[in-house]
């Protein structure tokens, strides 16, 4: 993987990455399917990375996004990879970021990342995508108030899907009110220059998709012209490096505890996890 990474650093193509997140049942997969259809009409190649949660007990998962995109089966310019979140609290496995770079290297024009909105996954998507689309629906329980903290900050575009259902205008209005009151800040802390538009769609009828894509492109232009895109990209590389380090460290600690019974015994008897962890990390790896 590391050798491949080095080769890829020199790959020319950097595809745009748009991320979709939202509660289960918001119609994300149908929306992504409609977007892929639109992009294909423009003869663009698309790769889709769709994540579903794994069961925390069994580790298994039914990855149910591919089946929502049946009509693109056998289209050589559409690639779909279903991924399990694999216990990664954020909803996107660590491998996703590597996968995205690979997809770019293989020449895909656009990359779409989709993840179900549980846990902290919205933040995960935002860390990976250039443009984050948050999908809401009219029948989302007790309305927009229930939306978790963080959504307003990370959304670059809001979609209110299933706009044919009664109550969708209420969601749009509530969202607009919240946005005007909250003056959201970016992940870096500065007040945002970008005002996230609210797009209404009926994904099952492919309505509003053109407007959605136009909003995404507009956001990309903003990232480019403001220099924000580059700054985010650099921050992400740093963050990802830190996460890889954390994952490697985690593996080392687990392996050490499994393989060194003496160490484990001492942990149980007298030492704290902090001391044990430091001891392991101080050792030479291998």
């Amino acid at each position: 993987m590391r050798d491949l990474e080095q080769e890829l650093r020199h790959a020319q193509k950097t595809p745009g990455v748009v991320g979709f997140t939202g509660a289960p049942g918001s119609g994300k997969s149908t929306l992504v399917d409609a977007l892929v259809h639109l992009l294909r009409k423009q003869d663009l190649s698309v790769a889709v990375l769709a994540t579903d949660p794994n069961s925390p007990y069994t580790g298994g998962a039914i990855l149910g996004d591919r089946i929502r995109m049946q009509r693109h089966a056998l289209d050589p310019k559409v690639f779909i990879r279903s991924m399990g979140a694999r216990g990664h609290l954020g909803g996107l496995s660590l491998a996703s970021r590597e996968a995205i770079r690979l997809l770019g290297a293989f020449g895909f024009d656009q990359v779409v990342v989709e993840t179900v909105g549980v846990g902290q996954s919205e933040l995960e998507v935002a860390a990976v995508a250039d443009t984050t689309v948050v999908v809401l629906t009219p029948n989302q329980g007790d309305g927009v108030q229930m939306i978790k903290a963080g959504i307003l900050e990370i959304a670059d575009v809001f979609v209110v899907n299933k706009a044919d259902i009664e109550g969708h205008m209420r969601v749009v209005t509530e969202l607009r009110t919240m946005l005007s009151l909250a003056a959201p800040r970016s992940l870096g802390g500065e007040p945002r220059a970008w005002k996230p538009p609210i797009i209404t769609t009926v994904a099952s009828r492919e309505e509003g998709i053109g407007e959605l894509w136009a909003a995404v492109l507009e956001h990309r232009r903003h990232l480019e012209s403001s220099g924000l895109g580059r700054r985010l990209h650099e921050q992400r590389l740093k963050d990802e490096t830190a996460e890889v380090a954390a994952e490697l460290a985690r593996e080392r600690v687990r392996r050490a505890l499994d393989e060194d019974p003496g160490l484990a015994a001492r942990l149980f008897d007298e030492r704290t996890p902090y001391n044990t962890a430091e001891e392991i990390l101080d050792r030479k790896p291998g």
Partner: protein
Amino acid sequence: MKVRARDSKQAWKEDFEASAARDDGIETSTISGVPLKPLYTGDDLPRREEELPGQFPYTRGIHTSGYRGRLWTMRQFSGFATAEETNRRYKYLLANGQTGLSVAFDMPTLMGQDSDAPTSRGEIGHCGVAIDSLADMETLFDGIPLGDITTSMTINSPAAILLCMYIAVAEKQGVSASGLGGTLQNDILKEFIAQKEFIFPPAPSMRLVVDSIEYCAKEVPKWNTISISGYHIREAGSTAAQELAFTLADGMAYVDACLERGMHIDDFASRLSFFFDAHIDFFEEIAKFRAARRIWARWMKERYGAQQERSWKLRFHTQTAGVSLTAQQPELNIARTAIEALAAVLGGTQSLHTNAMDEVLALPTDKAARLALRTQQLLAYETGVANTIDPLGGSYFVEALTDEMERQAEVYFKRIEELGGVIPAIEASFFQKEIADAAFRYQQELEQKRRLMVGVNEFTVNDEPPIEILRIDPKLESEQVARVREVRKKRDQARCSNALSRLKKAAAGTDNLMPYILEAVRAYATEGEIMQSMIDVFGTYTEQAVV
């Protein structure tokens, strides 16, 4: 002081609770999960006016004379490979006492495809007869007078086409459509829900169903235009209550659609028929059938305001449960089928198909098919169960269970209404999820041996001898392909393409499509070509699958 004797019911209760229960871990609820008491008494008998057969709401049967007046029709579903082979099997069954014909079509035909379509390869003739055009239909019924028998055709998305073919064959025999009797399954809603043989999206599919009902009301008045089915829903894994509720809800959706078309309820309601499963949990099935009649009668009379009695009477065909059959120790399937058939008869079915014992593995052999028919004859003529009408009426248990089934169905009707009706519920995957959950639950119960399948998860044997099964000669596939190509070559091309383009134009409009389809059929347009003309206008449907 005198010691008062215990009330006998109380005594029984106390003694029962003090007695030892079996410790085998087997569930005591019905196979659908309905909890059952160990004993039902007079206290469980619902308090209502005594019900009688042939009287609203028909819980005890739609006919005053029950099987004393007329036995159920022994209608064995049959069809395989080519029209010629199937014609031979039909003559064999008719000669052996079968009283009505039932046609099974192969997968390509069910899916509206011609035998020479690329996706038909390997699928021809396996689960039924291949019908590509009127020519095959003529062979299928060669020598069988359509005016003298009734025929049931199990087909859904292309149902209108097959009905037109039947009408066209009858024409050639000199039998007018008004004299034809039979049933068309034609129940597209359950395809979206369970069997998945849909082609067009829901709205145009419903239009075609209403077209056929409307057409038959005038031109083929003795024909049962639709067989609203619970069988497939049950086979897909639903509970009995779901089978009952989803089927009747579908029925109401068809009624609504016909009323929207401007038809009057009494013009078509009496020709709607139903098709249920007869599963292995004996009493639950009997209660289900009785509840079905009562619910439908009430809704037809009270909700839809139907005036004529025949509009209130639910008529149904039953098939014994395919999913209850085992590949292991398959002779036991004969017993299973007999018990299930008995439930259907005690439930008052109008017609019955009994499965053959080898059907788990493949289409039945002649011998197995005959045995299945004989099972019905045994019930009808040896057991005496046909001598009294609704013999279980008044049973504390059966009446209580009938009421419970009715209650559970009404709960489902409310939920479907809340979702906006059957089609919105289909699109929300409501039915499909209920069914998948029930199927998984049952499978887990089997895995945990809380329910048994004899020969499968208990009482197994090793090294079973192979059962002789019927094999389709692969040569028949290439012959069928050659046949359809021959038909296309030989027909009047102008007449055919005119008919198809008129059909296409009509599909884009609002005319009843039946006359257009009939004309295309007469011109020897193939099934695939007729379907394609409509697909060009209606499009096709992909389901939003839920696991």
